[in-house]
């Protein structure tokens, strides 16, 4: 979701409005947006020109804030991420490819679980090839909790009426982890 904004990716009006509403609420200190530092690996471009160095600095400065924070990867995050990845592994069966959760996805889920966030925000919902979807993880796995034991609300935020420039019009959680 960060790259959705930073890369200015074409998204539906509903998705764009939801992101803007979350950010508007954040600006008014009505929620805390947090993400694993692993997010930076996914978001920061690989080739940096002189201008890009400044852009990168501006991006990283966003997280030096009480209500907009990145969370370090601790040993406990890694251990839980491994448990998550192991749980969702599906070996090759009936000619279908094996399924394995992306390592960074597992780190994001572990970070959100450990920090007890109210909502985990993601657009990632692909189950093609070896991918394990996130938005529909519970439907895909048939279990309503991560690893059938860790409760976590996973959503792809969308504002049904698009952007009506209504700040605070959505019931924004106190803590959320967009990625």
């Amino acid at each position, binding site marked *: 979701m*960060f*790259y959705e*904004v*930073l*890369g*200015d990716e074409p998204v539906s009006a509903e998705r764009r409005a939801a992101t*803007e509403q979350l*950010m508007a609420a*954040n*600006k008014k200190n009505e929620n*805390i947006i*947090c993400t694993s530092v692993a997010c930076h*690996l*996914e*978001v*920061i*471009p*690989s*080739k940096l020109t002189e201008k*890009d160095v400044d*852009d990168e600095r*501006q*991006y990283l*400065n*966003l997280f*030096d*804030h*009480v*209500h*907009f*924070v990145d*969370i*370090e990867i*601790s*040993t*406990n*995050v*890694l*251990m*839980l*991420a*491994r448990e998550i*990845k*192991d749980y969702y592994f599906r070996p090759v069966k009936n000619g279908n490819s094996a399924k*394995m959760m*992306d*390592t*960074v996805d*597992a780190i994001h889920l572990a970070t959100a679980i*450990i*920090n*007890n*966030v109210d909502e985990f925000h993601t657009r990632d919902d692909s189950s093609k090839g070896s991918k394990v979807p996130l938005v529909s993880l519970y439907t895909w796995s048939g279990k309503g909790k991560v690893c*059938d*034991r860790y409760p976590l609300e996973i959503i792809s935020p969308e504002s049904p009426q698009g952007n009506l420039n209504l700040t605070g019009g959505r019931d924004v959680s106190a*803590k959320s982890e967009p990625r």
Partner: protein
Amino acid sequence: MLIGKDRERVMAKADLRLYIEGSRGRHGNVLAHVLHAKLGKLLAVLNQFDRKQVEVRERRVDYEISDAKKFNPTFLELHPVARVPSCDVAAVMEWTFSELEAVAMGGVVDPRVDAALAKSLVDLAELPNDPTGLERFWLELNGRVVGLDDEFRRHSALLAARRIAIERPTIWKQGASLGSVVGYLSQVGDLDGEAKLVITPRIGPEKVECVVKDEDREMVKGHLWTMVRINGLLHYSEKSPFPYRVDMRRIEQVPAQTGKSLLDLRGIFRGKPRQRLDLDGLLNG
């Protein structure tokens, strides 16, 4: 309250029949100690169901032997009676038997049937060491039958394994790592010559104790009652994923507001190639 015939009808519906078929080698007779052991295990299971239904410590139901016959199969009829006035024995038996049916079919079992109860079900369905001890063993409630056979034992064992995995408390890292904690520096105390602070993060742990060396006290004073980032050695226990203590090495202020928001930076990485990092092997077991 049910009285007279109504009470008798409901109570009769709640009666549980235990059938046990002896082996052909013993002309259908069941070994006494096998019957005794199975009955003991069945009563233990019934008592666990009774307690789990409403999460009470004491069992609420006793069982009278209301009928018994010795022909092949041998059967005993157990008539449930309430030990406490508030107990609806018919509801207890209905829930118990429904869950036994779910286990037998490998279906969805109520979460109240925990690992301990699931293991008791495995034990109940175990065959005796003596192969001539019994041939078959099953229960009947109001015409419904659950066989306590090898399939029931396998389903119970699978349920027990799943429940153990779910109920197992997560053991977190115990030890120390370098890192940082961000939060409100809310309290200072002096014990044993050390200045002890308490940091209250906005996310994560409720509180983290901060230990500061004497020579760092002056540096800390200017940051009291503000949001700070404390870098240092983080101490962890196996009970929590969060550090319970940080030995401070450096402290810095966290700004309440930054100049720009994410939306202000819309498009700064537009068209830039994203990194392709192959981390997938990192956590493979």
